[in-house]
């Protein structure tokens, strides 16, 4: 049986189908998970996709955090279960305190959709082990609230522990501290990423196929164990 990765749909999730497509192209089986149930359906990893859960009217991810499925995910993640949060998913992970910091309004105050260059800074996490250290990739970025903010102490901790997994290169799209595009938790099983790897899996529809490596990394990690 092939490796099962869950993709959660919250009300207002948008990139759930795209994330599922990425999972499948990477060679795993995508399993739809619905916010209202706490059943993880025996998946071995979970992707929290992009979108505007509950319209993001309060704060991005603030309401989704309380969904029943998140209770299960938080508990599992604390025991090493792999979770990738993309964009809104990253915001949900921060609101759930699985990751430190918060994502706030872009410095330019506009929603911004562009092909963004990133540098991969940590290849040890479950979701980035397929990259080479310092590898530069281009994947779409699209958000209105992607500015990573935290206090100095947290920033120092993230940097010293090597938990910044990717940084913006050449262009600062949103005013994130230290140009942070993505971070991981201490164990490296939980990763949050603002840009969208699931939109860079086929050159036909994306700027590159670099995004696929995130999904292949987890397969490699789990299947090759």
């Amino acid at each position, binding site marked *: 049986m092939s490796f099962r990765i869950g993709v959660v749909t919250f*009300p*207002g999730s*948008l*990139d759930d*189908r*795209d994330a599922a*497509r990425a999972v499948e192209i990477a060679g795993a089986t995508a399993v739809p998970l619905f916010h*209202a149930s706490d059943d993880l359906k025996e998946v071995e990893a979970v992707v929290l996709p*992009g*979108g*505007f859960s*509950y*319209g*993001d*009217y309060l704060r991005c991810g603030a309401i989704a955090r309380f969904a029943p499925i998140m209770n299960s995910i938080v508990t599992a993640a604390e025991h090493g279960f792999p979770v990738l949060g993309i964009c809104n998913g990253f915001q949900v992970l921060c609101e759930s305190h699985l990751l430190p910091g918060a994502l706030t309004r872009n410095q330019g105050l*506009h*929603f*911004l*959709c*562009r092909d963004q260059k990133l540098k991969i800074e940590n290849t040890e996490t479950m979701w980035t082990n397929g990259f080479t250290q310092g590898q530069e990739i281009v994947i*779409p970025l*699209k958000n*209105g609230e992607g500015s990573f903010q935290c206090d100095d102490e947290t920033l120092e901790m993230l940097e010293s522990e090597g938990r910044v997994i990717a940084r913006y290169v050449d262009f600062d799209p949103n005013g994130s501290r230290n140009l942070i595009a993505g971070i991981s938790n201490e164990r490296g099983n939980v990763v949050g990423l603002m840009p*969208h790897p*699931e*939109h860079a*899996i*086929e050159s*036909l*529809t*994306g700027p590159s196929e670099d995004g696929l490596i995130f999904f292949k990394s987890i397969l490699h990690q789990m299947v090759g164990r």
Partner: protein
Amino acid sequence: MSLDTVTNAQNNPDASQPWAELGLKEDEYARIKNILGRRPTSSELAMYSVMWSEHCSYKSSKVHLKQFGEKAPKSDALLVGIGENAGVVDIGQNYAVTFKIESHNHPSFVEPYQGAATGVGGIVRDILTMGARPIAVMDPLRFGLADAEDTRRVLPGIIAGVGGYGNCLGLPNIGGEVVFDETYAGNPLVNALCVGVMKHEDIKLAKAHGAGNLVVLFGAKTGGDGIGGVSVLASETFNAAKPTKRPSVQVGDPFAEKVLIECCLEIFHADLVVGIQDLGGAGLSCATSELASAGSGGMEIELEKVPLRDPSLSPEEILMSESQERMCAIVEPKHIKQFMAICKKWDVTATVIGEVTEGERLHISFNGELIVDVPPRTVAHDGPVYNRPIAKPAYVEERAKAVINIPMPTSAEDVKAAILKLIASPNIADKSWVTSQYDKYVQGNSVLAQPEDSGMIRIDEKTNLGVAISTDANARWSYLDPYEGAKLALAESMRNIATTGAKPLAVTNCLNFGSPEDPGVMWQFAETVRGLADACLELGLPVTGGNVSFYNQTGSVAILPTPVIGVLGVIQDVRKRTPMGINKSGSDLWLIGDVDSNMSGSEWAYLHGEIGNLSPKSDLAKEARLVDLLLEGQEIFEAAHDVSNGGLAATLVETVLKNKIGASVTLSDVAVALFSETPGRVLVAIDPNHTNEMVALAGKYQIAVNKIGTTGGDKLMINDTKLSITELSKAHTETFPKLFG
């Protein structure tokens, strides 16, 4: 509190009613009385007044629009034609596609963000109503001068609104237009297009069939949105103190619409509706009367069951409310439980508010009292029809005789300065400031998006079947000659489709004009429709639907006649699409089509304060051959880009800047070659090995082709004019950030 019931209307036949305040003419009011055999109740009056408005009844445009039916070309592709919420086209492999443009001009001037946002929301519901999953949006926009104070208020709000709503729905924005002209000051045009896809068997119609079937209202609760006018009635029938202020501004809730979409799609998938209609303009009045009118029998509605956001609403206001994010479905009783369960899953409020009846009347009651008793057809479909006076405005002949004198550069230096000036002008400049606020990636099927000639969406991931869409208008040509202008807009849109490698299939349109009460404007309108209908017939493309927006004028000054034409095409294998940008060095650049020296309506003329005299004449037979040439030659085109606004100069610069690969070209009569906007031209890049095929295509389709240069290098060389990619890029991209921050 007094309710104006049907009985009351019978007993007090002479009560005076505010029909004039509601925008009805005296004879229209008399006609309503005649239809009903008594005076209308205040609720009936509200319904008739809004359904017989220009916006809902097309009373000034109907007599002209019927040409689209009369002159319709034979088409096997058309599954649902004009008259439904949106037309449906067969694209093969059992897929059907539906698309339509609608305007939200005036609301966007009043409140740019919300006006534009709800414009997107409205057209998406129209597409959803057909049973389709919405898959992309586009936004043709027009503004007053770019540096005008009010444009700085209106434009950022409209862009944020289009993006805010569309992004939150998860619909990729794959194209649109941003055009500036003085006449749009005070009358910005916000046209929104949506395209959706479904399987043939999933097509839904707005019809209420089957006595005993239930009428279900679902989605957002009803508030007082957009009913400023009807409050006249409410304050007359209600004497109790109540809030008299009703917002004329509708506020959108894209999250509510997103869950409504998912909810509807699940309901469609389970095949739970007999008919369905979105609530747009005229709200419940429109939805109930249209459903009943198109159906087999009558309908009974219990209005007090409508869930309210504002409990103080009167029945008249409930009928009129334009609250967004609502739908109305006809459901067989045996399916209602499952229907409700799906609504509950998505947290969508759903309420049975009535049922389809045997009779032929639409009955609406409020707390048991009958307040509406009408033949639904008379409300929805048999509104007044006007044959408005038409007169060719004097300016047309005056312009035709005008002598124009536009400076044309000759020296290498002047050519360089001219190009830099042209590509920095707001109409030609890079629009990324706008389009980067739109998500073009969501759904993962966007094969082409702005700034490509058309947007292209993959429909099937296995077979790679796809559709392409483009919208175009050249209002300056339409101003000089609306008949030709419409034909040229259609030709351009069709050419954009073929340039990317798709075969044009069907047409939609949004006709934006000044006041129909001005015979000159009415002439522009009539000529436009005649031109579009003739062109569609000649090109074999059916009009599947559209929208008319009148009264876009300030005082006596109307906007330029602006027929926005959308063409949809189909491509069998999206992997073969042709992009616009030069993608390798060492290729040959060929210009397909001839140039002439008519500068009328061109951007270069406009930059010198001139609109010109005679619009170019369309040659549709040649345009059709060009389409065939483009489709047959697709395999050899590495890149292709249409020549339109800004002429070859703009085309060359855009082709070079896309991937930052330069080119050298040699042109004779360089200024005309660069700045004339002669229609029917496309620039293509091919491998030199394919020269013979290129020449053969030209012969076969009898279209002139000229090799004008080669690709490569880090600059654009035109004869002895050198422009580095850096300076081109700077000139092209600086304009919008400078103007709008």
